[in-house]
């Protein structure tokens, strides 16, 4: 089967994720276009991480994944994770997202052998322009960084590998409110620069301010999907996640 959405950078069809017999995710179709920022929201355990991890064929557990994933029209479902990464599909995972025992600068030195045709590999100087804080901390170990600095380093590490699609799994978790808006503003900026971005968030209130589209997942299924403005008024979102009753 060929990808159906014309300019989709990342597209998934009939994606399922199963952990030891329990299906955690079943999604018929999802696509993110160039320059588009799509938010994925839903309660704890809804299947958000399972979704972004499955797009890379990656997990810290041992799930069974079926379905087809396209990157810029190419079927990448059979490729190992590290090859998908080298082709420009980058994930900043939930939880541990930087190397703690090596320095910030070492975290940022790229691994080489990247197929970068038509993609922008950020230089270290560009990274430090984008995140001046990382420059100040460049000789510190990854483990010495604060939560916000780790998110910056996670994003920076991905940018060094020249992403065409960027997947972020709950970048705002545990951050102070001011930092949440800084991180999300950076994510918006990256989408505006042309990346396809899939942003997993529990902080729906903050996410809805920056995303183009919002996808609501419950128990592994997409239950609502649409432009941010329309979703703001959707009663399922308004009641459960924005803490207000729809007008």
């Amino acid at each position: 089967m060929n990808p159906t959405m014309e300019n989709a950078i990342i597209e998934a069809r009939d994606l399922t994720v199963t952990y030891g017999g329990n299906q955690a995710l079943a999604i018929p179709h999802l696509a993110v276009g160039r320059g588009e920022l799509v938010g994925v929201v839903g309660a704890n355990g809804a299947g958000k991480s399972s979704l972004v991890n499955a797009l890379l064929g990656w997990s810290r557990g041992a799930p069974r994944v079926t379905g087809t994933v396209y990157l810029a029209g190419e079927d990448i479902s059979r490729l190992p994770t590290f090859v998908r990464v080298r082709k420009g599909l980058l994930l900043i995972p939930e939880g541990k997202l930087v190397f703690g025992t090596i320095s910030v600068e070492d975290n940022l030195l790229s691994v080489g052998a990247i197929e970068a045709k038509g993609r922008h590999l950020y230089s270290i100087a560009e990274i430090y322009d984008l995140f001046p804080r990382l420059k100040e901390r460049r000789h510190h170990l990854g483990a010495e960084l604060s939560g916000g600095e780790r998110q910056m380093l996670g994003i920076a590490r991905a940018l060094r590998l020249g992403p065409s699609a960027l997947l972020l799994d709950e970048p705002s978790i545990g951050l102070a409110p001011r930092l949440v808006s800084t991180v999300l503003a950076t994510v918006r900026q990256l989408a505006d620069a042309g990346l396809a971005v899939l942003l997993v968030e529990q902080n729906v209130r903050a996410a809805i301010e920056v995303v183009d589209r919002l996808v609501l997942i419950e128990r592994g299924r997409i239950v609502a999907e649409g432009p941010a403005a329309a979703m703001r008024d959707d009663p399922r979102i308004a009641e459960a996640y924005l803490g207000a009753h729809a007008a």
Partner: protein
Amino acid sequence: MNLAQQLLNGIVLGHAYALLAIGWTVLLGVARLVNFGHGQMYMLGAFVTWYAGARLGMPYLAAGAMAITAGMVIGYIMQRIMLRLTLKQDLVTIMIVTLGFGYVLQGAAGLVFGSTGQILETPLSRIDIYWGDLWFTWQDIAIIVVAMLFFAALKYVIEHTGVGRIARMVAEDPALALLSGINVKRVYLGVFAFEGAAVALAAVMVAPRTPILTSMGFDEVIITFAVVVLGGIGSIAGSYFAGLALGLFTAFFGAFVAPAYTTAAAFAVLIAVLAIRPRGFAAAPGSR
């Protein structure tokens, strides 16, 4: 019994032990793997060197290169077979598989090389040096020099090069390394090939000191195990000093107490040290 002579013996033996253990140190530090076939791989390295020299008439350097290449190939093949276990970090099965692999190597070596002991002579081991009342050979000097150079080079590579950075990333978090575009399987294969080459290098250098037997693998793996554990699981500098300490201990204990009980005494010390300092002399790079 001459004190200075024992000190010298201990230093030579210590560098020999450190060299013997370095492959396993890297294996443990980078890949969190064990290889209980390590001793038999050492034995094979010694016999390949001996065969290439004594039977094929190759010069020592060429014979050594051949043994190191053979070690690298065997390490690679071994990891190829175990890769799925490695990715699951199934340590118990890996332990048994490598132990079994070692005994297969020993059996095969027995068939090919026979069960009689051989003397591995090199141009360096034939030259005795007398210096005051000290006696040693050029081989002893070569062991010390090669061990020092090898450890220094390895420490440099791990700490200051791209390859070393990738090794440290895989050591800390293989799953996260995949998300950085690192081919983790290839790192594991490379580390095992390095382990095979390193233990063969140790054999090329050290085996000429004593007669070689196809059954000598077990003693070698025991010493390696002691050095690696004492050195702090995966620490390169730690292994160097642990090897040296064990060499000195063995030399002095053997000379002044009783040579027959040296191994037993070494393990008594090992147990005592671990009871006091459970992580050995140093912490591992990327240790959890």
